[in-house]
């Protein structure tokens, strides 16, 4: 890629929650981040450091209390609704009264006017995530991993500029999680979306990303950035390569220090 404008830029972004007392609680502070098109960026950090909050601020679910957010160089607020972010929630937020196909159609319904086109697009994405044949299944008939795949298909179907994923595999059992990581790699390779991925699992972050961002404890700010130059395509074997383990250790050390700074495990 030549030096094009980054897709997403955060300049000095901060965010607060109204606190229980008079003072609002500072969740994020001084976030400066630049994401290029097609990049897969992961965010890791101690619990409660504001990783999820950052995603929500980028998506507009929460207002930033300070700083600017630029998408393709334009301030986020002004961008029309062409520029959707796809958001994949941790909880499989599928609507239980809709089949998987109709769930994927949800985002398309307001946007694509021809029903048949929308249908085609939805089927295409369900196929991409490997769920052909399950179009007419209801969420309660699908396993956790399958539900998250529908979730992903739904987020991708609206062709978002950026895909935001908030610990999407956290609720899955370890085996399914490993499979889903590989699935995600495959899907990402095919679509080459710009992804911001929040996770607690360092190995997961290193396996999936081009770059890993380490957050500090609350108030969250970017403590370190780690480039992951492992060659693609990656698979389960990559996880045992010395380079991988080394990166993992480095990042873990950072987080360990953060947790200790914050006053020990379980606080934040």
């Amino acid at each position: 890629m030549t030096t094009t404008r980054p897709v997403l830029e955060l300049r000095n972004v901060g965010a607060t929650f109204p606190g229980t007392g008079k003072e609002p609680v500072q969740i994020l502070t001084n976030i400066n981040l630049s994401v290029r098109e097609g990049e897969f960026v992961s965010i890791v950090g101690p619990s409660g450091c504001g990783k999820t909050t950052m995603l929500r601020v980028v998506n507009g679910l929460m207002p930033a209390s300070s700083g600017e957010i630029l998408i393709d160089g334009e301030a986020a607020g002004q961008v029309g609704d062409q520029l959707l972010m796809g958001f994949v929630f941790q909880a499989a937020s599928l609507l239980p009264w809709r089949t998987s196909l109709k769930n994927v159609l949800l985002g398309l319904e307001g946007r694509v006017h021809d029903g048949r086109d929308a249908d085609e697009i939805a089927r295409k994405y369900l196929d991409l995530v490997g769920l052909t044949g399950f179009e007419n299944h209801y969420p309660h008939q699908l396993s956790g991993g399958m539900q998250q795949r529908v979730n992903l298909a739904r987020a991708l179907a609206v062709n978002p500029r950026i895909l935001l994923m908030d610990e999407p595999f956290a609720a899955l059992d370890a085996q399914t999680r490993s499979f889903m990581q590989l699935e995600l790699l495959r899907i990402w390779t095919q679509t080459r979306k710009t992804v911001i991925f929040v996770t607690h699992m360092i190995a997961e972050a290193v396996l999936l990303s081009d770059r890993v961002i380490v957050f500090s404890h609350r108030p969250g700010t970017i403590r370190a950035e780690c480039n992951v130059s492992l060659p693609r395509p990656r698979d389960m074997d990559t996880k045992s390569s010395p380079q991988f383990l080394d990166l993992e250790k480095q990042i873990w050390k950072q987080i360990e220090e953060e947790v200790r700074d914050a006053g020990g495990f379980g606080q934040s």
Partner: protein
Amino acid sequence: MKPRPAFTRGAVSVVAGVAMWEICARALLENELLIPPPTSVARTFWSLAASGELNRHFVATATEFALGFGVACIVGVALGYLMGRYRWVDEIMEPWVAVLSSVPVVTLVPLIIVWFGIGMFAKVVVVFKVTLVAVTVNTSAGIKSVDRVWLELARSMRMSSWHTTWKIRLPAALPFIMTGMRLGVGRALLGVVLAELIASEAGLGYLLRESSEMWDSPKLFATIVLLVAIGLANFSLIRRVEQPMAPWRRTAEWSMDA
């Protein structure tokens, strides 16, 4: 397909019960008025149906019920939605809904008759009141309990308010709405029969009173059996409708209320 044991046992029980009733009534009791045997009840039932008298009363009750219930459901869902969605509406309406729901229907019937006379309209009002309360309260609860995640999903997809309401809030509240309707049906039936019992010239409740005043126990029993049948039919019908409407809700909670 072999029926489940529960069903066969139930059927056996009913048949045995009716048979015992027949035997006891004929053999033991001398006074037929006290407990008419099922055969004479059946005969009376048949003659009532044939003469069209049963029809007349049944249709009267059914119409009153359908009108009141239908209108109340529409108004109830609308009102419940507003209350569930907008806190200020909820606060304003809450005291009145609470009062209305705690007044037993039985005690309101005389008042409604004072206001609306003994005609059909009064009965419709009774059904309306009972159903409205049940549907409103439950719809409101349903709207309030819409999973926040879905609403955030709608926001992140930049869905319009209108779409959010029709595609997310209302479908999510549907199980609650159905519960409200189910509660309303049982109580509304009681209300309408009671109102007819007290002051009416037609309807199943009227039949109840007429037959008891005339000491016509086969007719009385026939009416009671019919009412029981209606109650049971309502119950299983709603059960049946509720499940497919909300297949994702495992009704492990045996929702028992009426």
